């Protein structure tokens, strides 16, 4: 068992060496900035086993070597999820002390690994004289006062304090410290009023920096991209942060041989960054009509539709704006299409990345449309203007004028434009309204004054009523008169009859039969005609009977009347018949008087 284990270890060691051969790195690490009077460490590390004695240190000009080289080697093997990895590390450490302020360079160190030489890059180091360096004599102070007010600082650094509206500014919140920081307890970012802020991705590596003549360790806490949205001077208020710092105190009185005499204190500090102001400049005058607030530098590409289309098929025009600037605030350029084109909602797709210099990427506008009617059309150029803050000028990009010919698909009539109304065969759209045109022609005569309730009106009304009365009276009188003629005739009827009967009597006395009967008939017919206002030509025995019946004369009398007529007619043309004329005569007088009695009543 032991042997097997031994073999395994050897195998592992061999494998790790093979792995190490693949990538040998030889690096130098030292702070870029040191203060005069402070010592610092320079470490040369190699991740493969070097040949013994092959390390050649540089000359360290301008520095005193306080210690070194101290060599430390490390070897580790890891098993992660059944995979094994091994690493080897060898570090040569020197402790140096700068001799004077200035810029120095640590030269290249060289080393040999398996016969191959490696060397480090020269490393520049700046040595400065720190102001007010207070070292020593702090032993009797409280832990809080051990950290000077300017030992921990918080700064909001801006890439620029002057910008145009919409131009991006990078704001980094940096913690400067000369002591070790345990923890950030709270961070309150101010409201960035007047800005559109976007979070940036940033590297969280510490670095050293000189500020106010002191050297600090710097840590980036936050980084934002700010786009001013209004002009004028905008002040960003202070950023507040609570940090906990660690203070190590060497306590000589209570020296513990095992734990050492070190006391560790924690100090909480409330840090405030100074408010910063940004001057936001308004765009200069003379903006082109198509300028809508785009700031940065852009380029325009346009994907035109087919030049030949069939009516009622859809197509699209695609416009892509690529560049760096406030892409998110760009509005789609206006596309003007001929009236017979039906335009649909513009589709926007963007591919935007936020980088330290601003947002960059591209935005694509897709303008779908349907050409409704056939014809040759020209699409006017699309214009896009932006403001270039680096040159302080407006730039206008435009697509090319584009001709399109739409072929008739046989279903739609050609668009007809008449007086602002465009019709597409079926429905007509009201495009706009305006007042109707004035009335022309000759000057119209002033309308007549109102006649209502004027003398003329009353005159007309009176005239009408008067006319009515006059007409009524006149007509009525005429009617009454004509009625009286009839009445008189009726009144006269029996008189006429009597006269005629007398004539008949005279004929009877002369024994003239023919004339007697003739007079009799005439008297009889005439009587009825006059009495009832019926023309003689319309009279028959039937009508006589009817008329008499209507007037309430008994049928017996009517019959008698008709019988007299019949007898008279017979006797008139039959001379041989020996009729008694006297009898006929008296009978007739009797009947007439009877009728007279009945009718009169």
């Amino acid at each position, binding site marked *: 068992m032991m042997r097997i284990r031994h073999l395994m270890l050897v195998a592992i060691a061999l494998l790790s060496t093979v792995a190490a051969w693949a990538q040998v790195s030889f690096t130098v690490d030292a702070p870029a900035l040191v203060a005069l009077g402070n010592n610092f460490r320079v470490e040369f590390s190699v991740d493969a086993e070097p040949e013994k004695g092959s390390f050649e240190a540089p000359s360290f000009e301008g520095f005193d070597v306080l210690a070194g080289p101290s060599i430390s080697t490390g070897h580790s093997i890891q098993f992660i999820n059944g995979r094994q990895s091994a690493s080897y590390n060898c570090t040569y450490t020197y402790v140096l002390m700068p001799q004077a302020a200035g810029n120095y360079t640590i030269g290249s160190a060289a080393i040999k690994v398996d016969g191959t030489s490696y060397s480090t890059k020269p490393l520049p180091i700046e040595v400065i004289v720190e102001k007010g360096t207070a070292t020593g004599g702090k032993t009797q102070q409280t832990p809080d006062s051990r950290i000077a007010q300017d030992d921990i600082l918080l700064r909001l650094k801006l890439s620029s304090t002057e910008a145009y509206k919409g131009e991006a500014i990078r704001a980094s919140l940096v913690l400067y410290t000369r002591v070790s920081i345990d923890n950030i307890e709270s961070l309150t970012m101010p409201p960035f009023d007047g800005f559109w802020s976007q979070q940036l991705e940033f590297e969280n590596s510490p670095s050293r920096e000189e500020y106010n003549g002191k050297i600090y360790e710097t840590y980036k806490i936050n980084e934002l991209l700010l786009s001013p949205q209004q002009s004028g001077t905008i002040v960003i208020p202070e950023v507040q942060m609570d940090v906990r710092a660690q203070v190590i105190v060497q306590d000589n009185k209570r020296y513990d041989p095992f734990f050492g005499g070190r006391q560790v204190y924690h100090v909480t500090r409330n840090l405030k960054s100074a408010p910063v102001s940004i001057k936001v400049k308004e765009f200069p005058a003379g903006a082109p009509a198509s300028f809508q607030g785009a700031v940065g530098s852009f380029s325009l590409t346009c994907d035109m539709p087919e030049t030949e289309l069939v009516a009622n098929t859809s197509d699209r025009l695609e416009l892509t704006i690529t560049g760096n600037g406030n892409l998110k605030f760009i509005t789609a350029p206006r596309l003007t299409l001929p009236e017979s084109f039906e335009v649909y909602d513009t589709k926007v797709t963007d591919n935007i990345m936020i980088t330290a210099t601003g947002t960059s990427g591209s935005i694509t506008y897709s303008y779908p449309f349907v050409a409704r009617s056939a014809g040759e059309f020209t699409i006017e150029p699309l214009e896009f203007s932006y403001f270039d803050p680096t040159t302080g000028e407006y730039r206008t990009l435009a697509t090319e004028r584009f001709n399109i010919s739409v072929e008739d698909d046989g279903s739609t009539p050609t668009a007809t434009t008449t007086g602002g109304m465009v019709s597409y065969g079926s429905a007509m759209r009201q495009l706009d309204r305006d*007042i109707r045109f004035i009335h022309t022609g000759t*000057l119209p005569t002033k309308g007549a004054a109102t006649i*209502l309730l004027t*003398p003329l009106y009353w*005159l007309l009304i009176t005239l009408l009523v008067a006319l*009515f009365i006059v007409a009524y009276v006149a007509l009525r009188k005429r009617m009454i008169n004509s009625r009286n003629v009839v009445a008189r005739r009726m009144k006269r009827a029996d008189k006429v009859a009597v006269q005629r009967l007398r004539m008949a009597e005279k004929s009877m006395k002369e024994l003239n039969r023919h004339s007697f009967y003739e007079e009799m008939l005439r008297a009889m017919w005439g009587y009825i005609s006059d009495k009832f206002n019926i023309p003689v030509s319309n009279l028959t025995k039937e009508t006589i009977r009817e008329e008499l019946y209507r007037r309430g004369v008994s049928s017996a009398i009517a019959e008698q009347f008709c019988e007299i007529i019949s007898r008279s007619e017979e006797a008139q043309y039959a001379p041989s018949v020996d009729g008694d004329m006297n009898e006929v005569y008296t009978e007739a007088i009797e009947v007439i008087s009877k009728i007279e009695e009945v009718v009169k009543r």
Partner: protein
Amino acid sequence: MNIIDRLTVIVALMVCLTTANDAYSADATTTAAACWDEGIEAYEARDYAKAVEAFEHIVTLGEASEDVYYNLAGAYFKLGQQNISSTLRPFAGGELGRAVLNYHRALRIDPAMEDARYNLDLAVDHTNDTEAVPDSFITQLWHSLRDMTGTNGWTVASIIMLAIALMLTIVYLLGQRIVLRKVTFFTALVLYIGFMLTTALAISSHMATTNDTRAVVICNDTTPVHASPDSASKIIRQPSQGVTLEVLRSHGEWSEILFADGEKGWIRTSQIENI
């Protein structure tokens, strides 16, 4: 015969009077006709300021018919729209108020003028006039019937109806046949009712045109309407030009007015003009 003679004399006298009147205004008519042609020419050439001047001159001559007011209103409206380029806002010179005023005047003479009503509606859309309290259905019906023609139209219609009705009455009174009498009786009855209705419409139309107490705001800026005739009192409303109001009474340089929606207030008389 005596009565007819007298009537003839009266008619003759009236004819004489009207012809005398015509002779007096013959000169004014020729000037007005020239102005009319000039106004139309200027309007067609889009010189609306000149068109306004020409049509206004016809009005001052007293020769204005409904068409003159209609054209004047149109010229004012166009002038107000044209001035946008120089004053940056439409109707800066109170043209909208003048346009509304003159459309109202045209409609007052001829309530049946459809073009004027259309244009008035369009002009009123540019004002901040409030929605009127809607009239009852019967009132609306009566008004739409009344505005079908002017006072004279209704008067003539009523006289014709009366004449026919009287004729039919005679036929009814003197007729012999029953059917004829029945027909004439009912027709005459309907015509008498028609006569009364048309007379009422004529009177209503006459009242609407003669007793028109409406006024239009002509001031070019928003005009304050105060709660009492005192410029220190509260401003209750700010009607824009072209808002139509009813004038109730006047007090000093102030007029009490009634808005279409029933709100009352006081406005300076100089800022409104009666229709």
